[in-house]
């Protein structure tokens, strides 16, 4: 395979339209559509006793009002459980419109359709709903205590108990030289893409067909859900993801109520209907993630080698469980990191609360796992008086231990087996990049300026590219254009460029001739979706295979025409030629024309392929048996299991001990995602992930009060980082190819965010000498921690201060 473009920082194809304001995001579509808006629950837990729409009826411009009473058949049933699991013993989902009870602030109760959004909101304001408030459960601790229930028939609030183990952990702990136990918390944040959700639906009554545009990460699955719920035949539903302004996981959940209700209204009213989510709606009716209480017991020897690890987590999954227990499974399995752990047990109690649902947010449970593991190792280092980096080094899986089979099951239902990696190499690069060993001099220098400097680090291992499959279709047209389609979706990852690089390299054409389409069920109907850092691995390999199929067929046809053997042919810049014999060539686009034997010519190029144009053998059929017309090929990549990327971050924080403000002074990343298709795009993913990691560690927290009201449902009070809060990042790379797929690719999308909270917690702890057991942390919280005489001092700080405190 020619690798001219593969591995190059090719500038993005999608940018041409985006930088001139010609992107087509959901709200840019359908200017003539009616507008939908929703009345959403103002209470976290309540029975609905009456819905009075009378007051809305005389709003000029009102078209229709829908409540649960208007839903029938499958639409009147709860939303689907997307990923069932035997350990999800008490799953629950909501209804598209609340059926008598609401379980979180923001749950949709009434849909209003009007001539525009302003009027729809006016009508919503006039709808009077009476509620009987019920006790509210907020936070893992309240859910655990179960003084009140979220769902009446689940009195202990436990929806699932995820349990995996590799051996008898209690015996292993008992036999361990040392043990320590601790509890820590990590709090909720959320994806918060700059573009919220949105749905546009058009029903063609003549054709009885539905076209839906939705800002989704999974068009094919939304299509199936709409067809099922609206009782339409699958072939009568098309779903297209337009340009999408970010997803980060929240748009993988489906079907959102709106994805069903907006099409329902479009069919019902015979008009185009559109709903564009506003920012407040996004905060209170999309999804959040990250809250967990983690109880950890670890056994270790005097060198800091792990002998046993027992993790008991309480995971807040919000009011419903549409996405099953993927996030807890990721926490349980990715917690292990790059370490060789003899005996491990994970038990995760996934609990209901009267808050927004919890579904994957970039990292999807892995940041919590990393936080658990890395803070455990920090405590071991502290207890033994060892360098924190050294403790990591001593526990690493070595390069000769691959494939490393944990004996556990991953989120794809497959065995958790690390395929390849070089963890010692990763850490060695990080130590150099971050100048770990030179830190104490920097700490001393900061002290002369009256500042507290601290350093922390955290490696991670990330399972990427889970199946079941993705597909690719590649077609060369007579014009020379190469069309590439894959069913998964794009939200800014540069798929139009990366997949074009792969196909252009494979086929030997100019990248300018390649056009990529994603997320459109009209073009490619079999797909899973964009999540778990899988697009490059899955669709990258699938389009590569499809392109190979096209190449083989092209060479076969060309060989026939040029009277050469396919093995003697090469393709370069769209021209197929005999190696070393310039002049004996045929353009790929001509081969495309010839591949479709025609009776009728409709242009000059087509003439070449008509039945009288070329002399063919009289005893062979124009289309050979088993062959097909056209120069195109469809292929699929289905992995036997996930492939494991890895990396490590180191962070230095500078703290002002007068104001407790925390600044990130230095951020270093070493990153391994196997073979890299476009290094510029991979680095961009790392930058974005790190910004979210910093945000999650120091600024972002969903602040629910005891009544289940989200107090910071706006950008004013939910603090996402501006440029001033994101540090410069130094990046180094390592490439350990994946043996599991032909291109050797591992996923890169989530890497940047995974170790942020762990590394920053470690750095802050190092700076102030007090145990950090709850993240995120803000200056006011750090102040409280430091001035509290009961807060735990680290042993390291004690040693540094010469007090000899050991634990």
């Amino acid at each position, binding site marked *: 395979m020619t690798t001219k473009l593969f591995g190059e920082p090719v500038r993005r194809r999608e940018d041409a339209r985006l930088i001139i304001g010609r992107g087509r995001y959901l709200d840019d579509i359908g200017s003539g559509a009616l507008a939908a808006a929703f009345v959403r629950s103002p209470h976290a837990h309540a029975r609905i006793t009456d819905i009075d729409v009378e007051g809305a009826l005389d709003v000029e411009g009102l078209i229709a009002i829908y409540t649960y009473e208007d839903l029938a058949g499958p639409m009147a049933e709860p939303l689907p459980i997307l990923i069932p699991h035997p350990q999800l013993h008490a799953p629950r989902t909501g209804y598209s419109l609340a059926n008598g009870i609401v379980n979180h602030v923001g749950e949709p109760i009434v849909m209003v359709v009007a001539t525009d*959004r*302003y009027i729809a*909101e*006016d009508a919503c*304001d006039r709808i009077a709903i009476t509620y009987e408030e019920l006790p509210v459960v907020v936070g893992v601790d309240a859910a655990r205590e179960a003084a009140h229930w979220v769902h009446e028939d689940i009195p202990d609030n436990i929806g699932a108990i995820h349990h995996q183990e590799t051996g008898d952990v209690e015996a292993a702990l008992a036999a361990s030289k040392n043990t320590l136990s601790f509890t820590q918390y990590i709090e909720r944040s959320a994806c918060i893409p700059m573009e919220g959700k949105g749905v546009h639906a058009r029903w063609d009554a003549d054709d009885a067909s539905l076209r839906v545009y939705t800002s989704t990460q999974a068009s094919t699955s939304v299509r199936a859900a709409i067809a099922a719920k609206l009782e339409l035949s699958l072939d009568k539903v098309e779903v297209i993801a337009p340009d999408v302004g970010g997803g980060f996981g929240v748009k993988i959940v489906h079907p959102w109520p709106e994805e069903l209700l907006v099409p329902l209204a479009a069919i019902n009213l015979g008009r185009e209907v559109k709903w564009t989510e*506003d*920012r*407040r709606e996004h905060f209170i009716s999309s999804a959040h993630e990250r809250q967990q209480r983690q109880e950890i017991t670890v056994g270790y020897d005097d060198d800091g080698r792990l002998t046993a690890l027992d993790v008991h987590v309480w995971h807040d999954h919000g009011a419903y469980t549409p996405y099953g227990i993927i996030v807890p499974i990721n926490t349980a399995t990715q917690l292990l990191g790059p370490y060789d752990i003899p005996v491990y047990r994970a038990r995760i109690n996934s609990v209901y609360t009267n808050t927004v649902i919890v579904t994957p947010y970039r990292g999807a449970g892995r940041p919590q796992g990393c936080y658990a593991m890395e803070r455990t190792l920090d405590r071991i280092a502290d207890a033994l008086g060892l360098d924190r980096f050294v403790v990591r080094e001593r526990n690493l899986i070595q390069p000769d231990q691959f494939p490393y089979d944990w004996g556990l099951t991953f989120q794809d239902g497959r065995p958790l087996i690390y395929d390849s990696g070089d963890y010692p190499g990763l850490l060695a690069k990080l130590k150099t990049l971050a100048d770990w060993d030179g830190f104490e001099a920097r700490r001393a220098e900061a002290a002369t300026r009256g500042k507290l400097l601290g350093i922390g680090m955290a490696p991670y291992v990330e399972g990427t590219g889970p199946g079941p499959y993705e597909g690719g279709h590649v077609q060369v047209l007579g014009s020379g254009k190469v069309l590439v389609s894959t069913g998964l979706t794009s939200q800014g990852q540069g798929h139009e460029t990366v997949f074009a690089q792969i196909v252009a390299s494979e086929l030997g054409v100019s990248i300018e001739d390649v056009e990529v389409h994603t997320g459109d069920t009209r073009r490619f109907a079999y797909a899973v979706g964009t999540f778990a850092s899988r697009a490059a691995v899955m669709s990258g390999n699938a389009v590569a295979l499809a392109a190979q199929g096209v190449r083989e067929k092209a060479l076969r046809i060309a060989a026939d025409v040029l009277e050469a053997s396919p093995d003697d042919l090469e393709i370069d810049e769209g021209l197929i030629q005999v190696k070393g014999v310039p002049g004996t060539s045929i353009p790929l686009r001509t081969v495309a024309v010839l591949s479709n034997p025609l009776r009728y010519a409709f242009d000059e190029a087509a003439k070449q392929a008509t039945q009288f144009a070329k002399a063919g053998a009289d005893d062979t059929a124009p289309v050979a048996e088993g062959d097909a017309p056209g120069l195109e090929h469809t292929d699929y990549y289905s992995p036997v299991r996930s492939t494991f990327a890895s990396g490590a971050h180191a962070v230095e924080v500078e703290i002002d001990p*007068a*104001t*407790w*403000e925390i600044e990130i002074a230095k951020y270093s990343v070493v990153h391994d995602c196997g073979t890299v298709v476009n290094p510029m795009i991979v680095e961009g993913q790392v930058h974005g992930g790190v910004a979210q990691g910093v945000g999650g560690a120091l*600024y972002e927290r969903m*602040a629910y009060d005891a009544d289940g009201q989200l*107090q*910071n449902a*706006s950008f*004013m*009070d939910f*603090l996402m*980082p*501006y440029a*001033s*809060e994101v540090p410069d990042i130094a990046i180094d790379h390592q490439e350990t190819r994946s043996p599991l797929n032909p291109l050797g690719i591992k996923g890169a999308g989530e890497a940047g965010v995974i170790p942020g909270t762990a590394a920053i917690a470690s750095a802050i702890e190092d700076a102030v000498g007090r145990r950090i057991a709850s993240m995120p942390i*803000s*200056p*006011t919280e750090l*102040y*409280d921690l430091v001035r509290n005489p009961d807060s735990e001092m680290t042993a390291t700080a004690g040693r540094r201060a010469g007090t000899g405190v050991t634990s």
Partner: protein
Amino acid sequence: MKPAPFRYADPGTLDEALAVLSAEGEGAKVLAGGQSLLPLLSMRLAAPATLVDINRVPGLDRIEATGDGVTVGALVRHNQLLHDDAAARVQPLLARATANVAHPAIRNRGTTVGSIAHADPSGEMTSVLALTDGSVEVATPSGPQTIGWRDLFVGPLETSIHGPAVVTSAFFPALPPRSGTAFAEVARRKGDYAVCGGGVVVTLDDDHRVTAVRAAYISVGLVPEVHDLTDAVIGQPADGADWAGAGALARTLVDPDTDLHGSADYRRLLVGVLTERMLIEAVARVTDE
């Protein structure tokens, strides 16, 4: 999030504005910069029946700096004041505080007087009006009124102005001689509302000893407050005065609240730290200003 319905007028003179406000009554609200008002309208936290947009009224966009002080017209945008050298010379606190207001795009539309009329205790300009012992000029159907800052701010987001009225300007007295100023804030993100902030004015005598220290703080109370910190440092030589003591005194005089971004105790801590830092800065500026 879209505003609830309202009617709109954009008068071409102050008299027209007052006439419309009188005619429309209680439900009418003045619109100038709109940077605070529009989000409230979009979130439907405010739903006035009529908006009276004064952006077309002439003569309200002037800044006048004289020996007495700086008069800032109702339509002077934050960015305009920020870059007005004459105003900065007469009252340096103006530019110092304005630099902390939000982000440039907000400052292109938002107005100094609008901030003051909005009476947000987290607003930088309300504290500067208080600290400089300033006042506002208000046009009413029965003639113009001058309202001093103490009478103006009655509660969070509430002024003493009732009935049809347009605040036409704010007056910030000049910095006294032999004085220096500073303004500082601690915010969670650059450009956010302060968790705690404030300004100070320190005045020295001919022997370079402290004669007066005044401070005003934001985000620590329901209305802007000015505190006299002189007692902690009176008569002390400017070099080596007990600024930490002034900070400690300030801490005892404020009564902040706890919210999402900071506890009451944390705000008190910041009052102490910021006061000390600001006074050191302000005193170094006394010869310059």
